């Protein structure tokens, strides 16, 4: 499948939420960047969600590969997976801070899995993030920094969520990252409940404190 064909599987025409799928890793599918690692394509068991809640959006913020696999697992429960990976690849042979390359074959795998799943028109979204995006450490100045942050403009506004019946956002991760804290604070202000889970325990409501620019 070409990047365009894979993208179309993740963004079926006219479906809610799909406009927010970020095209960047799909573009990379057509590039000559080769992945030689073994891909474990087993679908994980989800412990923190038992069934579909149409008033709940989920944000998965774990390793990109696992994020896609959990997204597909949640699609089996009725959620629409929306990959919002936004990191670019370095030129061939250039070392980088973040390895985005493994995301691309998993998106191809996910597209094939999505072909087998029928989602309802009003399926709530599960946004897929890669926590490795925040790897900024450069062992040497020559390294290409392709780390990235999530920004408010990368997901629907609080009003859009509310207009579409979403009143809760569950973040699944190891911890609530600083960029997500900044993004989600206005949602909390608009009375959308923010919950957090480490993936094994039930999601619990949290209160996000306002982050000052200097702390970012």
């Amino acid at each position, binding site marked *: 499948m070409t990047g365009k064909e894979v993208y179309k599987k993740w963004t079926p025409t006219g479906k809610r939420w799909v406009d927010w799928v970020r095209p*960047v890793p*799909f573009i990379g599918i057509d590039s000559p960047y080769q992945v030689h690692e073994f891909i474990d394509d087993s679908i994980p068991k989800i412990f923190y969600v038992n069934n579909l809640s149409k008033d709940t959006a989920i944000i998965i913020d774990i390793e990109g590969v696992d994020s896609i696999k959990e997204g597909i697992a949640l699609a089996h429960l009725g959620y629409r997976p929306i990959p919002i990976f936004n990191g670019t690849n370095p030129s061939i042979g*250039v070392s980088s801070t973040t390895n985005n390359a493994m995301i691309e074959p998993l998106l191809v795998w996910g597209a094939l899995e999505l072909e087998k799943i029928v989602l309802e028109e009003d399926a709530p979204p599960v946004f897929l993030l890669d926590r490795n995006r925040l790897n900024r450490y450069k062992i040497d100045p020559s390294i*290409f920094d392709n780390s990235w942050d999530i920004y408010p403009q990368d997901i629907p506004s609080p009003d859009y969520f509310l207009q579409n019946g979403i009143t809760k956002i569950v973040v699944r991760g190891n911890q609530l990252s600083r960029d997500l804290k900044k993004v989600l604070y206005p949602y909390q202000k608009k009375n959308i409940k923010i919950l957090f889970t480490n993936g094994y325990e039930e999601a619990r409501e949290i209160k996000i404190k306002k982050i000052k620019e200097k702390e970012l």
Partner: protein
Amino acid sequence: MKLVSIPNYEEYRVDAIFDCYKWDPQFLDHNTLAKYALVITEKESKELAELTEMLDSETRCAEEFLNRHLDLAKRLEIPKKISCELKRMKEYDPKRHIRLMRYDFHPTVDEKWVISEVNSDVPGGFAEASLLPKLAIRYLSKSRKSYDSIDFGDILAKTIAKKIKRNGTIMFVHCTSYSDDRQVMQYIGDKMESLGFHSLYGAADHVRFENREAMSILDGNQGKIDCIVRFTPLEWLKEIKPKTWAGYFDTTTPSCNHPIAIFAQTKRFPLIWDLLEQHGISLETWRKLLPDTIEVKNLKGKDGYIYKPAWGRVGEKISIPEACSEGEYQTILKDVRRHPKRYLAQKKFLSKPLKSPDGKLFHVCLGSYSVDGNHAGFYARISEKNRIDSDAADIPVLIERNKKDDRKRSL
């Protein structure tokens, strides 16, 4: 000038993403790719091209004069970290570098053009101005009209190619964490690769300078660079503080753009026009097209002005009340009171909206590029608001060919 609907829009959007480097098709709740094409007449195209070249000639004259008379540039309030390096530019040779600018035109209710600014330092929209019109023409091929477009990328790439050695290495300097910067660089980088050059993608601090020549320190690609194409704005570069960033100012390596762009990049540029004119620099076209621009402190008793930040981008912090989001207008006014020299006051113009085929009204910002003084194409955005900002959508610009010309061609 009119808006024409693009048939089969959903397919067009996907093609724009994959074939036209449009990697940022969504911004918050807004689709950033218009469902229309902006069609201008050949007469409008010619008029805009002429105005662009006249503006460009004046701007380049002014910046080269200021470079020789830095004391006159003080009123521009260029940040200290930049202004202290300006003296390094004294050997600036315009023939060595590539000068790229984009002038933003707006149609007004009194059937005139005004310009809101020049994107002097790092104008974007490269692929949208080059590939998107061709894609739109393909989608409109069943229409009876005959459309054409100007390939900006082709003009820029050929100009760069003329100034550097064959098969040379070009470093595309950008903020590597931002995919929307990379899409601009990748388009022109691929274009240069297709002409036989070697394209490198790196950040500002991947460039070091030795004997005023640029060298790459990018992993696996160390060595001499033959050209710098920069998309990191100078005022951001100053914040990033790469150890050798001052080298950008006096490098002999061909640069697009060279930091000389800073003089016209600040929106305070019009505040020194009187001074420039006293020294014989003509700014006649600028005066004709830019609304009256004054210091904030001189606004007392004058009506109909808006505030603009001196270093603003993409319409941010412009105080058009009806275009501001909730609370934004008051926040801008507060900031203007606190930092009046970081803003300027400009007479508000009345933009004339265009009606789409489905009856919606859109304001237009029609960017017109110049490369080394020659007109090089168009990049446009439309918005339902009269401020063209991040909520605006990119729209391909097509030129409607005269039927007379068609007849001539067929004869």
